[in-house]
Protein backbone atom coordinates (compact mmCIF):
# COMPACT_ATOMS: atom_id res chain seq x y z
CA UNK A 1 0.00 0.00 0.00
CA UNK A 2 2.73 2.41 0.81
CA UNK A 3 4.34 1.56 -2.46
CA UNK A 4 1.21 2.66 -4.34
CA UNK A 5 1.16 6.02 -2.48
CA UNK A 6 4.75 6.66 -3.38
CA UNK A 7 3.88 5.69 -6.99
CA UNK A 8 1.08 8.30 -6.99
CA UNK A 9 3.44 10.99 -5.73
CA UNK A 10 5.93 10.29 -8.48
CA UNK A 11 3.13 10.22 -11.08
CA UNK A 12 1.84 13.58 -9.84
CA UNK A 13 5.24 15.18 -10.10
CA UNK A 14 5.62 13.67 -13.57
CA UNK A 15 2.26 15.20 -14.61
CA UNK A 16 3.31 18.62 -13.39
CA UNK A 17 6.53 18.39 -15.31
CA UNK A 18 4.54 17.30 -18.39
CA UNK A 19 2.24 20.35 -18.28
CA UNK A 20 5.13 22.70 -17.69
CA UNK A 21 6.88 21.35 -20.71
CA UNK A 22 3.77 21.83 -22.87
CA UNK A 23 3.41 25.45 -21.83
CA UNK A 24 6.99 26.18 -22.72
CA UNK A 25 6.52 24.53 -26.11
CA UNK A 26 3.44 26.63 -26.89
CA UNK A 27 5.18 29.89 -26.00
CA UNK A 28 8.07 28.82 -28.17
CA UNK A 29 5.59 28.38 -31.05
CA UNK A 30 4.22 31.91 -30.52
CA UNK A 31 7.70 33.37 -30.59
CA UNK A 32 8.46 31.64 -33.83
CA UNK A 33 5.13 32.93 -35.26
CA UNK A 34 5.91 36.54 -34.41
CA UNK A 35 9.33 36.27 -35.93
CA UNK A 36 7.80 34.64 -38.98
CA UNK A 37 5.22 37.44 -39.28
CA UNK A 38 7.92 40.04 -39.38
CA UNK A 39 9.62 38.21 -42.22
CA UNK A 40 6.51 37.00 -44.15
CA UNK A 41 2.85 38.10 -43.64
CA UNK A 42 1.54 34.53 -43.42
CA UNK A 43 0.01 33.21 -40.23
CA UNK A 44 -0.20 29.60 -39.23
CA UNK A 45 -1.17 27.45 -36.33
CA UNK A 46 -2.78 29.25 -33.39
CA UNK A 47 -2.85 32.72 -34.96
CA UNK A 48 -4.59 31.49 -38.09
CA UNK A 49 -7.25 29.60 -36.15
CA UNK A 50 -7.77 32.63 -33.85
CA UNK A 51 -8.47 34.83 -36.88
CA UNK A 52 -10.86 32.30 -38.37
CA UNK A 53 -12.78 31.89 -35.12
CA UNK A 54 -13.17 35.65 -34.55
CA UNK A 55 -14.47 36.09 -38.10
CA UNK A 56 -17.01 33.33 -37.55
CA UNK A 57 -18.35 35.14 -34.48
CA UNK A 58 -18.67 38.40 -36.45
CA UNK A 59 -20.64 36.72 -39.27
CA UNK A 60 -23.21 35.34 -36.82
CA UNK A 61 -24.32 38.83 -35.75
CA UNK A 62 -25.78 39.80 -39.20
CA UNK A 63 -29.54 40.47 -38.68
CA UNK A 64 -32.11 38.67 -40.79
CA UNK A 65 -34.35 40.85 -42.95
CA UNK A 66 -37.33 38.62 -43.65
CA UNK A 67 -40.67 39.90 -42.39
CA UNK A 68 -41.20 37.27 -39.69
CA UNK A 69 -37.91 38.01 -37.93
CA UNK A 70 -38.31 41.78 -38.37
CA UNK A 71 -41.71 41.60 -36.69
CA UNK A 72 -40.50 39.29 -33.93
CA UNK A 73 -37.68 41.67 -33.01
CA UNK A 74 -39.75 44.84 -33.37
CA UNK A 75 -40.67 47.31 -30.64
CA UNK A 76 -44.38 46.46 -30.97
CA UNK A 77 -43.77 42.88 -29.85
CA UNK A 78 -41.42 44.07 -27.09
CA UNK A 79 -44.23 46.26 -25.79
CA UNK A 80 -46.47 43.33 -24.88
CA UNK A 81 -49.85 44.49 -23.63
CA UNK A 82 -49.85 48.15 -24.66
CA UNK A 83 -52.14 49.32 -21.84
CA UNK A 84 -50.32 51.49 -19.26
CA UNK A 85 -46.96 51.19 -20.94
CA UNK A 86 -44.73 54.26 -21.03
CA UNK A 87 -43.21 55.25 -24.37
CA UNK A 88 -41.36 58.22 -25.80
CA UNK A 89 -43.09 60.34 -28.41
CA UNK A 90 -42.32 63.40 -30.45
CA UNK A 91 -44.62 66.38 -30.97
CA UNK A 92 -45.17 66.92 -34.69
CA UNK A 93 -47.96 69.48 -34.64
CA UNK A 94 -49.35 72.02 -32.21
CA UNK A 95 -52.76 73.69 -32.38
CA UNK A 96 -52.98 76.23 -29.51
CA UNK A 97 -53.43 73.93 -26.50
CA UNK A 98 -53.54 70.57 -28.32
CA UNK A 99 -50.32 68.63 -28.89
CA UNK A 100 -50.20 65.98 -31.63
CA UNK A 101 -47.67 63.36 -30.53
CA UNK A 102 -46.24 60.59 -32.73
CA UNK A 103 -44.74 57.61 -30.89
CA UNK A 104 -43.97 55.18 -33.70
CA UNK A 105 -47.37 53.58 -33.98
CA UNK A 106 -49.97 53.71 -36.78
CA UNK A 107 -51.76 56.63 -35.14
CA UNK A 108 -50.72 59.72 -33.26
CA UNK A 109 -52.24 60.83 -29.99
CA UNK A 110 -53.60 64.22 -29.02
CA UNK A 111 -52.95 65.57 -25.52
CA UNK A 112 -53.70 68.91 -23.91
CA UNK A 113 -50.83 71.12 -22.95
CA UNK A 114 -49.94 70.78 -19.26
CA UNK A 115 -49.76 73.84 -17.05
CA UNK A 116 -46.18 73.48 -15.83
CA UNK A 117 -43.39 74.18 -18.37
CA UNK A 118 -46.09 74.96 -20.92
CA UNK A 119 -43.82 76.92 -23.23
CA UNK A 120 -41.45 73.96 -23.70
CA UNK A 121 -44.05 71.97 -25.63
CA UNK A 122 -43.29 72.92 -29.22
CA UNK A 123 -42.91 71.03 -32.46
CA UNK A 124 -39.93 68.67 -32.16
CA UNK A 125 -40.05 68.23 -28.39
CA UNK A 126 -39.65 64.68 -27.03
CA UNK A 127 -42.15 63.70 -24.36
CA UNK A 128 -43.01 60.73 -22.16
CA UNK A 129 -46.52 59.36 -22.56
CA UNK A 130 -48.47 56.50 -21.04
CA UNK A 131 -50.59 54.49 -23.47
CA UNK A 132 -54.20 54.01 -22.45
CA UNK A 133 -55.46 52.62 -25.77
CA UNK A 134 -53.66 52.22 -29.08
CA UNK A 135 -56.75 52.94 -31.18
CA UNK A 136 -59.97 54.62 -30.07
CA UNK A 137 -62.52 52.41 -31.76
CA UNK A 138 -65.67 50.70 -30.56
CA UNK A 139 -68.78 49.15 -31.97
CA UNK A 140 -71.94 51.14 -31.61
CA UNK A 141 -75.41 49.66 -31.38
CA UNK A 142 -76.87 48.66 -34.73
CA UNK A 143 -73.68 48.85 -36.81
CA UNK A 144 -71.77 46.02 -38.51
CA UNK A 145 -68.27 47.31 -37.94
CA UNK A 146 -66.40 49.41 -35.41
CA UNK A 147 -66.20 53.16 -35.67
CA UNK A 148 -62.63 54.44 -35.34
CA UNK A 149 -61.42 57.87 -34.35
CA UNK A 150 -58.05 57.25 -36.07
CA UNK A 151 -56.25 58.30 -32.89
CA UNK A 152 -54.53 56.69 -29.94
CA UNK A 153 -55.41 57.61 -26.39
CA UNK A 154 -52.45 58.48 -24.18
CA UNK A 155 -51.71 60.41 -21.01
CA UNK A 156 -48.91 62.95 -21.15
CA UNK A 157 -46.44 62.42 -18.33
CA UNK A 158 -43.67 64.88 -18.93
CA UNK A 159 -41.09 66.35 -21.20
CA UNK A 160 -37.72 64.77 -22.00
CA UNK A 161 -36.09 67.34 -24.23
CA UNK A 162 -37.26 70.45 -25.99
CA UNK A 163 -35.64 72.53 -28.73
CA UNK A 164 -36.59 75.65 -26.74
CA UNK A 165 -34.49 74.78 -23.73
CA UNK A 166 -31.22 73.06 -24.74
CA UNK A 167 -29.77 70.67 -22.13
CA UNK A 168 -26.26 70.99 -20.72
CA UNK A 169 -24.91 68.22 -22.97
CA UNK A 170 -26.22 70.00 -26.04
CA UNK A 171 -24.72 73.29 -24.82
CA UNK A 172 -21.27 71.75 -24.38
CA UNK A 173 -21.33 70.10 -27.86
Amino acid at each position, binding site marked *: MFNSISMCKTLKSCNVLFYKRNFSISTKLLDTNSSDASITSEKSGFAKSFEKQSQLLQEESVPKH*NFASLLRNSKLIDLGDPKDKIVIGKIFHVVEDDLYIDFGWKFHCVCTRPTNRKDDYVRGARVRIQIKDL*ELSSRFLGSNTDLTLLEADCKLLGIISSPIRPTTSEKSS
Partner: protein
Amino acid sequence: MIRRCLILPLRNGITVCRNNSTAVAEQAESTQESNTPAKNPLDHPDYFQVHNLFTVKDLFDARVHFGHKEGSLNEFMTPYIYGSRQGHLIFDLDITAEHLRKALNFTAHIAYRGGIVCFFNRNALNAHLVEKTALECGEYAHTRFWRGGIFTNADHQFGAITRLPDLCIFLNTQNNILNQHTAVRDSAKLLIPTIGIVDSNCNPNLITYPVPGNDDTPVAIELYCKLFKAAITRGKEARMKFLQENN
Protein backbone atom coordinates in the same frame (compact mmCIF):
# COMPACT_ATOMS: atom_id res chain seq x y z
CA MET B 1 -47.40 69.90 -83.01
CA ILE B 2 -46.47 67.31 -80.46
CA ARG B 3 -48.70 64.26 -80.60
CA ARG B 4 -50.00 63.79 -77.08
CA CYS B 5 -50.97 60.16 -77.46
CA LEU B 6 -48.68 57.62 -79.07
CA ILE B 7 -50.41 54.30 -79.39
CA LEU B 8 -48.02 51.39 -79.87
CA PRO B 9 -49.39 48.28 -81.53
CA LEU B 10 -49.82 45.07 -79.58
CA ARG B 11 -48.18 41.90 -80.70
CA ASN B 12 -50.85 40.78 -83.16
CA GLY B 13 -51.03 44.13 -84.88
CA ILE B 14 -54.30 45.43 -83.39
CA THR B 15 -54.05 48.98 -82.10
CA VAL B 16 -55.99 49.90 -78.99
CA CYS B 17 -57.76 53.26 -78.73
CA ARG B 18 -60.16 53.83 -75.84
CA ASN B 19 -62.80 56.59 -75.80
CA ASN B 20 -64.13 57.84 -72.51
CA SER B 21 -65.98 60.85 -73.90
CA THR B 22 -67.71 61.84 -77.11
CA ALA B 23 -64.42 62.99 -78.66
CA VAL B 24 -63.40 61.98 -82.16
CA ALA B 25 -61.21 58.90 -82.12
CA GLU B 26 -57.53 59.90 -82.15
CA GLN B 27 -55.58 58.70 -85.14
CA ALA B 28 -53.58 55.66 -84.22
CA GLU B 29 -50.11 56.15 -85.67
CA SER B 30 -48.03 53.02 -85.59
CA THR B 31 -44.35 53.82 -85.69
CA GLN B 32 -43.36 50.15 -85.63
CA GLU B 33 -44.43 47.12 -87.64
CA SER B 34 -45.97 44.29 -85.61
CA ASN B 35 -43.18 41.79 -86.24
CA THR B 36 -40.28 44.06 -85.30
CA PRO B 37 -36.96 42.76 -83.96
CA ALA B 38 -36.89 45.58 -81.32
CA LYS B 39 -37.97 44.41 -77.84
CA ASN B 40 -41.54 45.00 -76.73
CA PRO B 41 -41.62 46.36 -73.13
CA LEU B 42 -44.72 44.27 -72.40
CA ASP B 43 -42.76 41.06 -72.91
CA HIS B 44 -40.42 41.81 -70.02
CA PRO B 45 -41.70 41.02 -66.49
CA ASP B 46 -39.98 44.10 -65.02
CA TYR B 47 -38.93 46.36 -67.86
CA PHE B 48 -38.42 49.45 -65.69
CA GLN B 49 -36.71 47.64 -62.76
CA VAL B 50 -39.29 48.91 -60.29
CA HIS B 51 -38.63 45.82 -58.17
CA ASN B 52 -35.41 47.51 -57.01
CA LEU B 53 -37.23 50.58 -55.69
CA PHE B 54 -37.97 49.13 -52.25
CA THR B 55 -37.31 46.20 -49.87
CA VAL B 56 -39.47 44.54 -47.24
CA LYS B 57 -37.35 46.32 -44.60
CA ASP B 58 -38.25 49.71 -46.11
CA LEU B 59 -41.94 48.80 -45.84
CA PHE B 60 -41.41 47.67 -42.26
CA ASP B 61 -39.61 50.87 -41.24
CA ALA B 62 -42.39 52.94 -42.80
CA ARG B 63 -44.98 51.11 -40.58
CA VAL B 64 -46.83 49.66 -43.58
CA HIS B 65 -47.68 46.45 -41.69
CA PHE B 66 -49.92 48.11 -39.06
CA GLY B 67 -53.64 47.53 -39.47
CA HIS B 68 -56.72 48.60 -37.54
CA LYS B 69 -58.37 46.61 -34.76
CA GLU B 70 -60.04 43.27 -35.34
CA GLY B 71 -63.49 44.79 -34.90
CA SER B 72 -63.21 46.95 -38.02
CA LEU B 73 -61.84 44.22 -40.28
CA ASN B 74 -63.41 43.92 -43.72
CA GLU B 75 -63.93 40.22 -44.49
CA PHE B 76 -62.31 40.54 -47.93
CA MET B 77 -59.02 41.66 -46.36
CA THR B 78 -58.43 38.42 -44.43
CA PRO B 79 -56.09 36.84 -47.05
CA TYR B 80 -53.67 39.75 -46.65
CA ILE B 81 -53.45 39.65 -42.84
CA TYR B 82 -50.46 37.97 -41.17
CA GLY B 83 -52.15 37.84 -37.76
CA SER B 84 -53.34 39.93 -34.89
CA ARG B 85 -51.28 41.24 -31.97
CA GLN B 86 -53.27 42.16 -28.85
CA GLY B 87 -56.30 42.86 -31.06
CA HIS B 88 -54.41 44.90 -33.66
CA LEU B 89 -54.03 43.41 -37.12
CA ILE B 90 -50.67 43.03 -38.86
CA PHE B 91 -50.36 42.81 -42.66
CA ASP B 92 -48.17 40.15 -44.25
CA LEU B 93 -45.50 42.27 -45.87
CA ASP B 94 -44.41 39.52 -48.26
CA ILE B 95 -47.88 39.58 -49.85
CA THR B 96 -47.91 43.39 -49.75
CA ALA B 97 -44.51 43.57 -51.42
CA GLU B 98 -45.67 41.35 -54.27
CA HIS B 99 -48.81 43.42 -54.85
CA LEU B 100 -46.85 46.66 -54.65
CA ARG B 101 -44.35 45.44 -57.23
CA LYS B 102 -47.18 44.61 -59.67
CA ALA B 103 -48.77 48.01 -59.06
CA LEU B 104 -45.51 49.93 -59.59
CA ASN B 105 -44.77 47.97 -62.77
CA PHE B 106 -48.24 48.80 -64.08
CA THR B 107 -47.80 52.49 -63.21
CA ALA B 108 -44.49 52.66 -65.03
CA HIS B 109 -46.02 51.05 -68.14
CA ILE B 110 -48.94 53.49 -68.12
CA ALA B 111 -46.53 56.43 -67.83
CA TYR B 112 -44.44 54.94 -70.69
CA ARG B 113 -47.52 54.87 -72.92
CA GLY B 114 -48.26 58.50 -72.12
CA GLY B 115 -51.22 57.93 -69.83
CA ILE B 116 -52.70 60.38 -67.34
CA VAL B 117 -52.45 59.38 -63.68
CA CYS B 118 -54.69 60.81 -60.98
CA PHE B 119 -53.91 60.49 -57.25
CA PHE B 120 -56.71 60.36 -54.68
CA ASN B 121 -56.48 60.84 -50.92
CA ARG B 122 -59.25 62.09 -48.64
CA ASN B 123 -57.23 62.02 -45.44
CA ALA B 124 -56.65 65.66 -44.50
CA LEU B 125 -53.41 64.77 -42.73
CA ASN B 126 -51.66 63.73 -45.97
CA ALA B 127 -53.57 65.69 -48.60
CA HIS B 128 -50.89 68.30 -49.11
CA LEU B 129 -48.14 65.71 -49.54
CA VAL B 130 -50.14 63.87 -52.21
CA GLU B 131 -50.83 67.07 -54.14
CA LYS B 132 -47.13 67.98 -53.99
CA THR B 133 -46.12 64.51 -55.27
CA ALA B 134 -48.51 64.77 -58.20
CA LEU B 135 -47.13 68.18 -59.08
CA GLU B 136 -43.54 66.95 -58.93
CA CYS B 137 -44.08 64.04 -61.31
CA GLY B 138 -46.23 66.03 -63.70
CA GLU B 139 -49.47 64.20 -63.00
CA TYR B 140 -52.77 65.05 -61.34
CA ALA B 141 -54.34 64.76 -57.89
CA HIS B 142 -57.83 65.16 -56.44
CA THR B 143 -57.88 65.40 -52.64
CA ARG B 144 -60.98 67.54 -52.12
CA PHE B 145 -64.70 66.97 -52.09
CA TRP B 146 -65.76 64.79 -55.04
CA ARG B 147 -68.84 66.01 -56.87
CA GLY B 148 -70.99 63.11 -58.03
CA GLY B 149 -70.55 63.16 -61.78
CA ILE B 150 -66.91 64.11 -62.28
CA PHE B 151 -66.22 60.89 -64.20
CA THR B 152 -69.70 59.82 -65.27
CA ASN B 153 -70.95 63.26 -66.32
CA ALA B 154 -67.63 64.85 -67.23
CA ASP B 155 -68.56 66.60 -70.47
CA HIS B 156 -71.49 68.40 -68.88
CA GLN B 157 -69.73 69.30 -65.63
CA PHE B 158 -66.58 70.69 -67.23
CA GLY B 159 -68.39 72.23 -70.17
CA ALA B 160 -66.01 70.89 -72.81
CA ILE B 161 -64.98 67.50 -74.13
CA THR B 162 -62.76 65.94 -71.43
CA ARG B 163 -60.13 63.24 -71.40
CA LEU B 164 -60.39 61.11 -68.26
CA PRO B 165 -57.40 59.65 -66.44
CA ASP B 166 -55.91 56.38 -67.66
CA LEU B 167 -54.99 55.30 -64.12
CA CYS B 168 -56.36 56.21 -60.71
CA ILE B 169 -54.09 55.73 -57.70
CA PHE B 170 -55.93 55.75 -54.37
CA LEU B 171 -53.61 56.38 -51.45
CA ASN B 172 -56.70 56.08 -49.24
CA THR B 173 -59.77 54.34 -50.66
CA GLN B 174 -62.08 55.70 -47.95
CA ASN B 175 -63.85 59.02 -48.26
CA ASN B 176 -64.55 59.19 -44.53
CA ILE B 177 -64.55 56.34 -42.01
CA LEU B 178 -67.99 55.11 -43.11
CA ASN B 179 -67.93 55.31 -46.93
CA GLN B 180 -65.69 54.27 -49.76
CA HIS B 181 -64.57 56.97 -52.21
CA THR B 182 -67.08 57.32 -55.08
CA ALA B 183 -64.27 57.37 -57.63
CA VAL B 184 -63.48 53.69 -56.94
CA ARG B 185 -66.93 52.69 -58.20
CA ASP B 186 -66.92 55.23 -61.02
CA SER B 187 -63.51 54.14 -62.32
CA ALA B 188 -64.78 50.57 -62.43
CA LYS B 189 -67.85 51.77 -64.35
CA LEU B 190 -65.73 53.56 -66.94
CA LEU B 191 -63.08 50.80 -67.20
CA ILE B 192 -60.32 52.96 -65.76
CA PRO B 193 -57.73 50.71 -64.03
CA THR B 194 -57.15 51.58 -60.38
CA ILE B 195 -54.38 51.01 -57.87
CA GLY B 196 -55.43 51.37 -54.24
CA ILE B 197 -53.75 51.16 -50.85
CA VAL B 198 -56.32 49.12 -48.93
CA ASP B 199 -56.22 49.12 -45.16
CA SER B 200 -57.88 46.43 -43.04
CA ASN B 201 -61.18 48.34 -42.96
CA CYS B 202 -61.34 48.90 -46.75
CA ASN B 203 -63.05 46.85 -49.47
CA PRO B 204 -60.54 45.76 -52.14
CA ASN B 205 -63.09 44.26 -54.54
CA LEU B 206 -63.46 46.99 -57.15
CA ILE B 207 -59.77 47.89 -57.29
CA THR B 208 -57.67 46.42 -60.11
CA TYR B 209 -54.34 46.35 -58.26
CA PRO B 210 -55.00 46.46 -54.51
CA VAL B 211 -51.98 46.96 -52.27
CA PRO B 212 -52.79 45.89 -48.71
CA GLY B 213 -51.09 48.17 -46.22
CA ASN B 214 -51.31 51.05 -43.80
CA ASP B 215 -52.90 54.20 -45.17
CA ASP B 216 -53.16 56.29 -41.99
CA THR B 217 -49.57 57.05 -41.00
CA PRO B 218 -47.86 59.98 -42.77
CA VAL B 219 -44.58 57.99 -42.96
CA ALA B 220 -46.27 55.20 -44.92
CA ILE B 221 -47.99 57.64 -47.29
CA GLU B 222 -44.65 59.39 -47.84
CA LEU B 223 -43.11 56.06 -48.86
CA TYR B 224 -45.94 55.26 -51.28
CA CYS B 225 -45.73 58.73 -52.83
CA LYS B 226 -41.98 58.36 -53.27
CA LEU B 227 -42.36 54.93 -54.91
CA PHE B 228 -45.15 55.94 -57.31
CA LYS B 229 -43.32 59.11 -58.25
CA ALA B 230 -40.17 57.10 -59.02
CA ALA B 231 -42.12 54.58 -61.12
CA ILE B 232 -43.86 57.32 -63.11
CA THR B 233 -40.58 59.17 -63.63
CA ARG B 234 -38.89 56.03 -64.92
CA GLY B 235 -41.73 55.35 -67.35
CA LYS B 236 -41.63 58.92 -68.64
CA GLU B 237 -37.86 58.91 -69.09
CA ALA B 238 -38.04 55.67 -71.07
CA ARG B 239 -40.77 57.24 -73.22
CA MET B 240 -38.64 60.34 -73.89
CA LYS B 241 -35.70 58.13 -74.86
CA PHE B 242 -37.90 56.07 -77.19
CA LEU B 243 -39.33 59.18 -78.88
CA GLN B 244 -35.87 60.69 -79.34
CA GLU B 245 -34.52 57.49 -80.87
CA ASN B 246 -37.33 57.33 -83.39
CA ASN B 247 -37.37 61.00 -84.49
